[in-house]
């Protein structure tokens, strides 16, 4: 039976779902509407008055317009703030609302594929923070998807995965993408850096100041102005770069006739693709990759949302000295959490080595252990926990675990932060 491997792009305006088909190796978007004409599902939820029935997407809009329900929108911002909404006198947390919204999306998927069990789910969001990531994992768990089957990534990483999932001639040189939504205009770039092992793919994301409201596109003069803005952006961003393909995505590019000059500018000696589900598709490719024995993406991903350094510790294990990698460059910061147990031997300092992947520079993060209780040598077991608040902020916690009943733990915790 075909497994359900999903990528779910969650944005404040629209959400999308793609399903990876392991047999074809391709992703399929979840299409809605009478003629299955759109994959954009408004990120809104509505609860009918006096009922406990939750409706999502366009139907939620319709119900709210008819006055038979209360609608809540901007669910991602609400989740980031840890906010709540009161509907019919009942206060719902952002997590509750997200559970109903994600549950509604999953019901649509289950209905389409006729299967109840979700085998893997990868969320992708514009920008991740710890609170949102934790909330999404909990919401997925409440939707019966175990934590170990859930991953979260940022749009930048989804774009890199999507680009690498295309035929090689697409990403032989730099690949770029314009994402035009109500939220603004975003530019993404992906470049494979060859000649090193593992191969590295570097991503860049820029939120362009030239962004405009999509309402502009409703009039010919507005379209003309938007075309001029985009053409100017393309000239600035693509100039003197060897680019093999340009992707266009976002609600602003559902139609591209209005952007004639822009298209001519970007299409010169390049492939241009317009599509609506790049991020959800990238996430779905990753969902499928998780079930493979060997990854289809043997690259080191360096982009927003992934860490750009290796964090290691020189240890002795089974009598041999070795470098223990605690956090690996290219890992999504949310997943780069790690913990180990160690015993200091004639040392009162924990010396973590932070090495950049792009330069020979190394730095040292030293944690002074002298605040821990005095004990005989090698009778203090420490749990070292590395966690990231973002791709740039590393926190190290050291917990005194004592030495069994011989030297009971004090439970003291040392904490050190480091800006990468």
């Amino acid at each position, binding site marked *: 039976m075909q497994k359900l491997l999903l990528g779910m792009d969650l944005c404040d305006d629209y959400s999308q779902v793609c399903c990876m088909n392991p047999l074809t190796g391709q992703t399929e978007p979840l299409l809605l509407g009478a003629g299955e004409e759109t994959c954009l599902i408004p990120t809104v939820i509505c609860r009918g008055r006096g009922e406990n029935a939750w409706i999502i997407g366009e139907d939620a809009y319709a119900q709210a317009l008819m006055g038979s329900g209360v609608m809540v929108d901007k669910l991602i911002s609400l989740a980031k703030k840890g906010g709540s909404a009161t509907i019919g006198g009942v206060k719902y947390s952002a997590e509750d609302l997200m559970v109903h919204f994600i549950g509604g999306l999953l019901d649509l998927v289950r209905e389409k594929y006729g299967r109840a069990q979700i085998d893997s789910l990868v969320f992708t969001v514009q920008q991740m923070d710890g609170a949102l990531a934790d909330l999404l994992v909990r919401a997925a768990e409440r939707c019966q998807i175990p934590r170990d089957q859930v991953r979260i990534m940022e749009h930048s990483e989804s774009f890199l995965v999507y680009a690498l999932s295309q035929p090689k001639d697409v990403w032989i040189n730099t690949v770029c993408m314009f994402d035009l939504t109500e939220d603004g205009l975003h530019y993404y770039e992906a470049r494979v850096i060859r000649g090193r092992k593992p191969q590295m793919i570097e991503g860049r994301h820029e939120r362009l100041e030239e962004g405009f409201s999509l309402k502009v596109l409703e009039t010919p003069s507005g379209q003309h102005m938007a075309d001029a803005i985009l053409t100017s952006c393309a000239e600035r961003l693509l100039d003197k770069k060897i680019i093999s393909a340009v992707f266009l995505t976002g609600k602003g590019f559902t139609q591209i006739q209005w952007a004639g000059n822009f298209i001519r500018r970007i299409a010169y000696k390049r492939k241009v693709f317009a599509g609506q589900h790049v991020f959800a598709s990238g996430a779905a490719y990753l969902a499928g990759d998780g079930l493979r024995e060997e990854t289809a993406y043997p690259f080191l991903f360096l982009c927003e949302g992934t860490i750009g350094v290796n964090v290691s*510790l*020189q*240890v*002795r*294990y*089974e*009598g041999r*000295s070795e470098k*223990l990698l605690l956090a690996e460059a290219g890992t999504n910061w949310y997943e780069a959490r790690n913990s*180990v*147990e*160690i*015993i*200091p*031997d*004639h*040392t009162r300092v*924990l010396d973590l080595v932070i090495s950049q992947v792009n330069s020979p520079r190394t730095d040292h993060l030293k944690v002074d252990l002298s605040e821990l209780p005095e004990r005989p040598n*090698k*009778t203090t*077991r420490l749990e070292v926990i590395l966690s990231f608040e973002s791709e740039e902020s590393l926190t190290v916690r050291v917990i005194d675990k004592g*030495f*069994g*009943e*011989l030297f009971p733990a004090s439970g003291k915790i040392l904490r050190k932060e480091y800006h990468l």
Partner: protein
Amino acid sequence: MSGILLCRSHAVSEPYYVEELGLSLYSEEELSYYIYHNATLIEEDFLDERLYRFIGTELGMTDLERKLRKWQEQAELSELLLVILQDIHYYDSDELFHFREKLSALAKKSPAARMKEKGDTLFAAGRYAAAAAIYDRLLASPGIGRADKLFVGAVWYNNGMALARQYLWQQAASCLAQACALTGSEEYKKKYYWITRMAPETADADVLRGISPDTAARWEKEWKTARENARFSGKAQQAITWLDKDNIRRAAGLTELVEEWKKEYRRSIGG
């Protein structure tokens, strides 16, 4: 050698209980530490099914378990202890060398000296009743009459200290009196004097005969200083740290502390 040792990460479901010390071991590092520092307590029966199961099943060191089972019949206990320490890698080669030397020095000692060392190890671990039992057995052994007086005096002294730690003042004073009689040691007499200060009913003027008034005055001063210091150190200090906390934390902290002391006391008397 300095550095950082990486621990294997696994939680044991059933720790290894060390009856002599009244505590459980939860990791291979703790097992190594126990062997290294308590070689005098370890006898042939240490290598038994319970230990093999702990090493193989709980610690997941099946190769070591297999090796020990295979060599149990052919190798000496000391060699097998070294095999355990080597395989766990908690101690480096220098430390293993010292352990080997410690074992051979122990092997060269007389049975009486080994027995005293066992008592001393239990004393150092706070197992006072067990230590006193060992000293009693040693003092009752047939050859003790021929042993060096200083050695026997030291055993009496240690026995006295082990009994004093159990608040058995009369018996402690009696042991110290024997130690003083055998050695004439001023240090032993001072401790005897202190015990008589703790429990005046134990005093026997004969034991301290010949002590000058100056010496007695010095001991008295030391005794008072030690008693004064005790108010601000050790267990008293542990309790004081909780007095600054708010009502709820203070009550919880002190309750936990008293529980800990009770546990420690029970362990010291073999409970």
